[in-house]
């Protein structure tokens, strides 16, 4: 009966120190993608291949910029395939920020002629930035930093983000040591953590869950789906990102985001 405990004590602790943003990255690990080539044909091919419509070329005035939206990118790497590819994997975590727009990274294009390409991000009217998180009093933030209770809601993803969230409870990450814990009831929660695209059939459930949470409270969208819909985008069955339905305080890109990035994103919203 006691052998479980004895074995565990003999095997010892496995909890890891929090790595820096770039530490512990295997050379092959898929990360975020930076511009590698300004060649128009390479950009066109990348835009055509991108399953999440995360790449665009914007023209404003005389200047052209390539945009890659980490809030949409599903890290499939199709835009970085081959020697002449437009983008390259830089082995860094996808962006996080307080607005969906802040996850779009821009690269000036030299000598690019022609019209805009790809999706028009300016038309993307979502990005309902929450004022609630930004207005939290310092005393509240201070207490949240020492005790943060998270209610997770899968709004309709592939379940990849959920499994990564589940891994936060693995002894290697041991999220409890940071005062963070997952709770069963929205009444006990300080943060609503949304993963997955906002499906039609869960809109009401998301709104009701947030209504059931006592203030002060925060909403965080993790993973490309929860931010923009990811590969699922907008369709008859879904609305895209969670901020189409509720105001969101923090965004973390990735498909799925890695557990350490999730921990950093939770800290970011409390800064």
């Amino acid at each position, binding site marked *: *009966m006691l052998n*479980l*405990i004895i*074995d*565990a004590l003999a095997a010892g602790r*496995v909890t890891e120190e929090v790595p820096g943003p770039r530490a512990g990255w*295997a050379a*092959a*690990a*898929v990360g975020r993608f930076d511009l590698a080539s300004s060649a128009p044909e390479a950009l066109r091919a990348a835009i*055509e*291949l*991108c*399953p999440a419509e995360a790449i665009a070329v914007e023209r404003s005035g005389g200047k052209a910029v390539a945009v890659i939206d980490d809030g949409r990118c*599903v*890290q*499939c790497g*199709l835009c970085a*395939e081959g020697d002449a590819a437009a983008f390259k*994997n830089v082995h860094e975590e996808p962006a996080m920020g307080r607005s969906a727009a802040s996850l779009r990274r821009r690269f000036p294009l030299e000598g690019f002629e022609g019209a805009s390409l790809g999706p028009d991000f300016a038309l993307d009217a979502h990005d309902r930035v929450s004022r609630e998180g930004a207005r939290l009093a310092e005393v509240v933030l201070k207490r949240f930093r020492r005790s943060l209770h998270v209610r*997770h*809601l*899968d709004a*309709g*993803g*592939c*379940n*990849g*983000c*959920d*499994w*990564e*969230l*589940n*891994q936060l*409870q*693995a*002894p*290697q*990450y041991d999220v409890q040591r940071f005062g963070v814990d*997952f709770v*069963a*009831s929205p009444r006990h929660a300080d943060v609503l953590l949304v993963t*997955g*695209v906002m*499906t*039609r*059939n*869960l809109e009401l*459930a998301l709104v009701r869950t947030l209504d059931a949470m006592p203030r002060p409270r925060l909403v965080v969208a993790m993973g490309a789906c929860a931010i923009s819909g990811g*590969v*699922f*985008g*907008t*369709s*008859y*069955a*879904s*609305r895209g990102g969670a901020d189409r339905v509720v105001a969101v305080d923090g965004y973390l890109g990735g498909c*799925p985001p890695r557990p350490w990035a999730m921990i950093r994103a939770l800290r970011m919203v409390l800064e």
Partner: protein
Amino acid sequence: MTEAARKEADRLVGRAPDDRRALKGARAYALALEELAPTVGRALAASWRFGSLVADQPRPGEVRLDYVFVAPGVRVPVVLGLSVPPAGVPSIALACPAASWAEREVSDLFGVTFSGSPDPRPLVHHEDWPEGLFPLRAGVNPPLPVERVSGQYPFRHVEGEGVMELRVGPIHAGIIEPGHFRFTAVGETVLGLEVRMFYVHRGVERLAQGRVPAAALAIAERVSGTASVAHSVAAARAMEAALRIEVPAAHALVRSLLLELERLYNHAGDLGNLCAGTALSVALAEGLIIKERLLAMNQALSGSRYLRNLVGLGGVRRAPSSADLDSALTGATAALESVERLANGIFGSATNLERLSGTGLLSPEHVRALGVVGVVARASGVRTDSRVDLAFPTPADSEIYGTLKPATETGADVAARAQVRLAEARESLRLCQGIVTRLADTDPAPPGISDRTGGEGLGWAEGPRGEILTFVRLEAGRVARLRVRSPSRMNWPAIEHAIPGNIVPDFPLINKSFNLSYAGCDL
């Protein structure tokens, strides 16, 4: 033997395969409407298993229905194809309960009506979906967001003295996907369970339409997060059948390796996860430790913790180096040792075993009637495994898997499902070793290619949860129709039959032992 079984199938259907049909990766027959019910009756009597119902509109104005079966010994799916106007198809669900959800789905998405259906309620659409709007029909493009109407879903209703109804979900207390469960119980004992799904319906099949194969594969990879490899391999095999692409041995073997590594991390994680249902916290933590190590190993091999971004059309997008393969094998071997220790804890704890034994029984009769696949079927003594039932498209795979004997148990309970997972994890490691050895002697090659831009194909893969059947029709180099039949789609209806007679607090444990994907089912 395969030839004899194919002749037998021809005799059963009463004709030769339809040679006008361009569907590859299957044995397709053309049927008239009135022939459907008798043919299906004979097929079920001959132990054919219902696999999928594919609705497609190659020409506007009519819906083609393909009833896909897996027949013993035929080694490719058997397709009974109907070309009919979208109304008045006789339902086969009474004779073949496995087809019930599939028929309901087709009538929701394509507007086909099935006469004589035992359960004509909507399935994919919830009560607020406007009547008469069929989102997968050609030319249907409703303004977004689709309007909501008021309506009510007719749940099954049980009345009686002391009977109470317990409604759970769609949002659950843990880190779990959404779905709605309605229990009718007397005290803590469950009389009945009704499962309501499709909260995470994202319209995957529609979204894939118009995409180039590479982008469609990225979408298929995201049908169900922990079966990324299996879903993309099944879709890639369907496309390759459609385009007559031959996959070189080196590529096919890497895919098989990824499939087995996916099974390994899933089964290891599931064994630990089971302990959340029994509150055996130390074993639960140990399972998470092992899974984390396997996910890190996946990342070292493929760049992705979920083994994404490697499967491509015609093979794999990037061949792992032999050093990568060796370290993956070392990692998998070490992980299996930990899994064995974990299993000792799970099965060696009397209090834990008491919880697992006799809980959540699913009879083999239910397995056969509902077309249940994967671990759940095998744990009820029904040996179905697409790695054995269906042929591999490449000879290299056939050799590796020639020695596979699918693990089965007869306990049909939570413990049996855990035992099958343990046995399969061992088998997966053995297969990985064989694959890596074989890869060392295999010459590298570029991925297979083709000049074709159109065609139809069926592809399959045995994912961690069971068989995946995927149909793809390509036109002008783009996906015109993607149809995914995930194992969870077949297994969700079965859980309704494993719960009655158990107590309410045992449901999470039984549910975990099924380990069903909501995303995979809802698409």
